[in-house]
């Protein structure tokens, strides 16, 4: 495996609240190599979107990111606003969940794509506009010249997400962060967008951090998968290993609760309860209250991530056994 493009160490994202910081991302470590796809799964509030925003330097104030994000040999945490701007949209780009609201409603999509090259490659609007038409064609949009002049509301959901992808890839970034890019789309359109992302990855060679709540989607495209729960990574493994042999009780529960298209059961297994409040004072494993295996030890100390098989990490006292 080549040297990592992205190395995240002890990343925490905290928001001030009465009596200290509330950490929605509470110390996570992972790495991503060029050209690879990392899937990040978890339920709402697990910190997966905030991790993505931290990579972009876009944690909304008054939130703060701490720890270390090394990208391409540079430390991103603590760099200046100008340095962030030079990176965003250029070397690291992002695709969001809802293409209708993520695009500017009063600007033609061609101009929105061209803007990226105007900002980073210092092209004129005319030349960048021509490139935008070519990019729309590259993401599979028919009659790209007319579409470039269209406003977002004049495009279908699938076309809007294609335009978003064209915008994100306008400067051929080294890392594409995709936050639930297909969640708002219909299944057949979702399949088209996933195909497109893989095809463009082949062509451009960017690494993808693909965030989703949908295990099945992530399983189809990711090389490695991170499972997040309440601000922590509970399990990290190559995709095949994770689904073949999930080690953390939460991962096991998530996979088991999904209805299996191949076989129908009378009752789906459930994970009881809900996601806990991210309290700074909480001790022990964050999943303990919902876990069938939990004992006093789990409630006393937070389990560290341990490598239980090559490349397979789980943060659970019961997983190693």
């Amino acid at each position, binding site marked *: 495996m080549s040297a990592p493009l992205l190395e995240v160490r002890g990343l925490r994202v905290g928001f001030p609240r009465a009596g200290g910081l509330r950490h929605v991302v509470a110390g996570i470590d992972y790495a991503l190599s060029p050209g690879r796809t990392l899937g990040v799964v978890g339920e709402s509030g697990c910190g997966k979107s905030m991790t993505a925003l931290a990579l*972009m330097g*876009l944690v909304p104030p008054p939130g703060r990111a701490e720890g270390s994000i090394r990208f391409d040999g540079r430390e991103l945490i603590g760099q200046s*606003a100008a340095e*962030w*701007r*030079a*990176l*965003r*949209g*250029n070397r690291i*780009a*992002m695709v*969001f969940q*809802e293409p209708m*609201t*993520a*695009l*500017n*409603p*009063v*600007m033609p999509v061609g101009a929105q794509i061209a*803007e*990226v090259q105007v*900002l*980073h490659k210092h092209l004129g609007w005319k030349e960048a506009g021509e490139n935008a038409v070519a990019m729309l064609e590259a993401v599979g949009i028919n009659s790209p010249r007319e579409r470039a002049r269209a*406003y977002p*509301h*004049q495009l279908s959901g699938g076309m809007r997400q294609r335009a*978003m992808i064209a*915008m994100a890839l306008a400067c051929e970034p080294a890392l594409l962060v995709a936050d639930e890019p297909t969640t708002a789309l219909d299944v057949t359109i979702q399949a088209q967008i996933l195909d497109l992302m893989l095809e463009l990855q082949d062509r451009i060679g960017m690494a993808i951090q693909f965030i989703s709540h949908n295990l099945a989607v992530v399983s189809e495209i990711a090389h490695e998968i991170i499972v997040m729960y309440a601000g922590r990574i509970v399990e990290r493994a190559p995709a095949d290993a994770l689904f073949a042999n999930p080690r953390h009780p939460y991962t096991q529960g998530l996979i088991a609760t999904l209805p299996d298209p191949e076989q129908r059961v009378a009752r789906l297994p459930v994970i009881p309860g809900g996601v806990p409040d991210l309290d700074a004072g909480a001790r022990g494993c964050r999943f303990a209250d919902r876990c069938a295996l939990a004992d006093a030890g789990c409630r006393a100390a937070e389990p560290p991530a341990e490598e239980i098989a090559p490349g397979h990490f789980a943060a659970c006292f019961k997983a190693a056994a």
Partner: protein
Amino acid sequence: MTRYILRRILQALLVLLVMSFVIYSLIGLMPGDPLDIMLASNPGATPEVVEHLRKLYGLDQPLMLRYLRWLQDALVGQFGYSRTHSLPVLSVLVPALIQTCKLMIISFIASVILAFILGILAALKPGGILDGVISLFAFAGISVPVFWLALMMILVFAVKLHWFPASGIATVGDGGFRDQALHLVMPVITLALASTGGFTRYVRASMIEVLRMDHVRTARAKGAAEWRVVLVHAFRNALIPVVTIMALSFGVLFNGALLTETMFAQPGMGKMIYDAILGNDFNLALTGLLFATVVTLLSNLVADLAYGWLDPRIALT
């Protein structure tokens, strides 16, 4: 689009027709008619003469018939004579209209520009010190009565400092551009400040809402500088609701103009209509009010067109 404008103009004409009847009837219902004042200045008139005059002016006819006759004339541009000025109505009205429009348009532009600057600055950090100061100013602008502000300005800038003339539109014997401009400064500031407060609050609220939107985050994710995010991506979106409100309130500015003109003794529409009604100058009052209606209808049409032009999602059909 052409079809839309055509339809709107047809609608406006219909409204104008209805309004003309309403205004005609209301003025007709006012106590006293033109003859009363004529006779007051000529107590020796015999009942025969009065009856003759009444016939001559058509005042013996029922209201509906008189209205129709007036309408017939009005449609070909004949608005009759102003009794108090002894001039055709239009030659009294047009200079007043120009004067008022000058005041309104300059004040409007000034308050819009000021409101954009203040509103955007306040929205950058809601709850910050700058926001607090601007909100206080906006609130003061909304609360302070126009006449009080006018009096204070006259007191400070005309009486004490002698920077600007206190009243009128030109100095007798001068009347150059500089002189006219100096006469406009205080009325414009007074009228502008009255609407700036409200406008600023609209701009601020709209900007705060837009700055929270997903596409603003997208703009930042592209690496756009903060000024570009605010002025190009957010501002254009924030304009949409604001411009509508602003254009609609252009008509409301008329009320303010009436007060301002009275305070600064300027011969505009407000003062003209006021005097016409007090003096039972039927034709002048009626026509003046109708033109005021036209201004309001026009500003509504401009508001809708601006909305459609700014927001590509709105198809005007």
